[in-house]
Each structure stands twice: as structure tokens, then as C-alpha cells.
């Protein structure tokens, strides 16, 4: 069943006709040629398809395009505006990937994760240290390795390059 949707992807508006079954991921990859988000599991388990949707990270494989008509999407490709994004730079500096398939999802997730932590949004690790900061969390939420691992747990890496991703993200958090 065809339907018209408008999606703003990495700053560019697109109007397209999609079947109601089309996910955001398939709309991006198959219809708009943006292959930055990857199809890993296609069931919301691996995080390779992570994009920012209206400012929040989501699994684009579980979001129906028709349900997000008018949505503002940022993919890993769209993060690089004036040269590489600091998180992209840090991933290169720390050799934070091997095959690279999960990397765009990891990078989008890391960018969102840093913003969430800065806004005081909690993780399970945060609850070990409640406080008077934003949202009842610690005043300065430490983006330490435990917080990074917990907050990045929705992005799997089959090569297990985690060991270098954690310091890459920590470096950006501290800069």
C-alpha cells in the first residue's frame, strides 16, 4: 500500500512514495541511496542501523517510514559537516574498528550517548550514584568506562573492537 512521505536526511529534504511496510532503514538505503546506516540483524538487536531521528538515536530497522513522515534524520554520514565529527576523528585516532560494518551505528550512538549523559539522563550505572544534578543524577555525570559500556550496549561489534571504542568515546567526553 503506497503512501507519500517527506524525510529530511542529513539536512536535505526528500519526498518519496513508499509502501507502508518500508522501514526507515530501507527508505534510507534502498530509496535514497544513503548506505551509511547498515542492515545487521534487521530486528533491533545489533544497533548497526542507528540514526538520529528528531534528535534521538533509534534503530531505523524498527521504525516505519510512514510513521515518521516529516522526520529529521541524521546518519553517520551527515555528522561530518565541517570536516570529521570529533567522534569520527577519535574512532580513527584510536583504531576503534576492524571491519567497519557496525561503525556508522556506533558513531551515531556515541554522539547521542554523549549528549544524553551531558543532559543528565540516567543509565543503570548512573543509579549507583544518585545526586542533585539534572534529573536527580550526579551533578557531574562521569562518562567513565562503565557508563560508556552500559550506554553503548545497544551496538554490537562482531570484531569486538570495543576495547578501542571506549577510550575513543572517553576522549571526546573529556575534551
Amino acid at each position, binding site marked *: 500500500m503506497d503512501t507519500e512521505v517527506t524525510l529530511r536526511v542529513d539536512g536535505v529534504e526528500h519526498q518519496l512514495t513508499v509502501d507502508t511496510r518500508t522501514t526507515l532503514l530501507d527508505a534510507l538505503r534502498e530509496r535514497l541511496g544513503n548506505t551509511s546506516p547498515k542492515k545487521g540483524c534487521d530486528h533491533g538487536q545489533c544497533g548497526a542501523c542507528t540514526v538520529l531521528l528528531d534528535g534521538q538515536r533509534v534503530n531505523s530497522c524498527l521504525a516505519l517510514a510512514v510513521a515518521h513522515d516529516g522526520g529529521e534524520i541524521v546518519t553517520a554520514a551527515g555528522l561530518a559537516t565541517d570536516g570529521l565529527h570529533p567522534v569520527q576523528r577519535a574512532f580513527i585516532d584510536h583504531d576503534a574498528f576492524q571491519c567497519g560494518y557496525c561503525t556508522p551505528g556506533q558513531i551515531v550512538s556515541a554522539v547521542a550517548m554523549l549528549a544524553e549523559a551531558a543532559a543528565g539522563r540516567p543509565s543503570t550505572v548512573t543509579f549507583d550514584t*544518585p545526586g542533585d544534578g539534572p534529573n536527580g543524577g550526579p551533578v557531574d555525570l562521569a562518562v567513565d568506562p562503565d557508563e560508556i559500556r552500559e550506554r553503548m550496549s545497544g551496538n554490537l561489534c562482531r570484531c569486538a573492537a570495543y576495547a578501542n571504542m571506549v577510550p575513543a568515546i572517553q576522549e571526546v567526553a573529556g575534551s
Partner: protein
Amino acid sequence: MRPFRYERAIDPAGAVALLAGSPRAAYLGGGTNLVDLMKLDVARPDLLVDIRGVTSRSIEELPDGGVRVGAGVSNSDLAADPLIRRRYPVIAQAVVSGASTQLRNLATVGGNLLQRTRCLYFQDVTTPCNKREPGTGCSAIEGHNRDLAILGASPDCVATHPSDLAVALVAMDATVQTLGPDGGRRIPLTELHRLPGAEPQADNVLTHGELITAVDLPPLPFATRSWYRKVRDRASYAFALVSVAAAIDVADGLVRDVRIALGGVAHKPWRATRAEDLLRGGPVTEERLRRAAAAELADARPQSDNAFKIPLARHVVVRTLLDLASDAR
């Protein structure tokens, strides 16, 4: 995925009317479970009615000191809400212990409560499953059942309810507000989900088209000291083997009130009333906690691969309440 029509509801009554007229229609919230089940051909709606624009996304104080959570609030926003974190930390903690941030950003409160079991056979249309296709049999009873029920199961179904949030809400005595073709009603969270019995196809007591519009939390001052402990196979991003939501009110060394609910053990979030009754009025000692936990699990019956869950559940109850009572967490 099978073809379906998509409609965006204009208001709650309109959403209910759309579903009432279509026996195979389904509501679409965040879609994180439903869209997945549609890909797996487990869910086969011919019409999706998008309710994200019509269910409330606000969290507000009630005149009685309780809190009302709109059914459209995202799981992430619920966990980050200052009021929830201060008054009912167990709820915020339960939410962030489930799924990933990407999923919690999409998932709604109403949808979280209505997500389906993650029993492998329910999700695999090539195998018999009484929940998916009544009368075909249960593949889990003699199959992979390590993650499944130890309490309240039936010969027809040994599935568990996967929600963490629901376990915390049951412990807090929350109530859901619904709107159906025959009007609105309020259902205590403890009565929303059901045991499988001979009709495992029904996860809950809602009728077709009945829409959850809000979750009401009663005032519970001692819930400011509440805790959610989840035990799972990996440190993050996994469903519970066993979880416990607990709050305890101790005065002059005696338990004035206590709330305990277990997750990962039954077809519904399991309110541990037997243990609560045994604990009220006495001191908080490890011995008394052990006896209360043992009484709660006395009727537990393991599946072939999950006998470990029974002592695990007992230990998690004891440890969580000891930590809460001593504030040593």
C-alpha cells in the same frame, strides 16, 4: 511482512473506533516489538492505527500526591523524569535496565506493558505454540526453556512476561486507565496481565481495541527508597533471568510496609504478596527474609532447564531487601 493499511488516529476515541471496526487491526506505538513481530510473521495486522499523536506524553502530579504517566511517554523520558526518579526510583531503574537506549527512545509506556513474550517458539512460526496458534501445543516444555516460567505456568504455556517496567509498576500498585468501545475503566497493574491457564493466547485482560491511555502511580512515600535488581546472562541489554522490584519501610526496627515483585519468573509480573505478609510487623533479619522468600517460591515448579531460577529468585529477594534496609546498596 504482509501488506497493511496505516492510519493516524486523531484522538483516543477515534483510535478506539478504528480498531473496533477492524478485528485484525492493531495499535502502533513505538513499534519496537510489533514491527519486529510483523517481520517474523507472528503479528499479521491488516491495519495499523498510529496512536503516538493521541496518547499523552506528559508526566504530572495528581491531587492525591500520586503521579500520572501518559501512555505515550517514551521509556527514555520516563526514566529521566525528575519526579519519577525522586519518588519512584525503582521505576526509572527498571526502565533503564531493559533494552537499549535506541529502543527506549522509540518505545512507549503503554506499548511496554503490552509487549509479547520473547519465548523462542512464540517468535518462530515454524514451531507449534499455543500462544501464537492455540491448540498446536507448547514447544518450550520439552525444548529450550531456560529463560521461561517457574511460577504459575500451565501445561499449555510456560512463557514469561518480558517487561521490566511492569514489574516495578506492579510493586508500586499502579493502575492503568483504558478507553475501550464501551468507555473507560481502571485496571490495577496486578490484574492487567494474566496467567496462561488454558488460554495462553491472551497475555492480559484487555479486549480488542481497548487502549491504555495512562498509568497512575499512587502516593507511596517509602518508595523513595526502592530498588530494581535484574539478573541476566550478560551485564547489559538482555532480558531478565530473574528480577526483583522492592521497597521497604522500616520504623523502630520493624517492617511497617514492604513491596516485592518478581520478573522473569511467570506469565505476568509476580507480586510477592506471600513474602510481603510474612515480613510486615517483624524485624528485618536475614533469617526472616529467607523464610519469606522461601514461602513465596514454595509453589515454584521448574522447567527442564531452569531449576536454577528458584534459588536465584530467593537469593535476589533476600539480598535486595537486605541492601535496601541497610541502605548499603
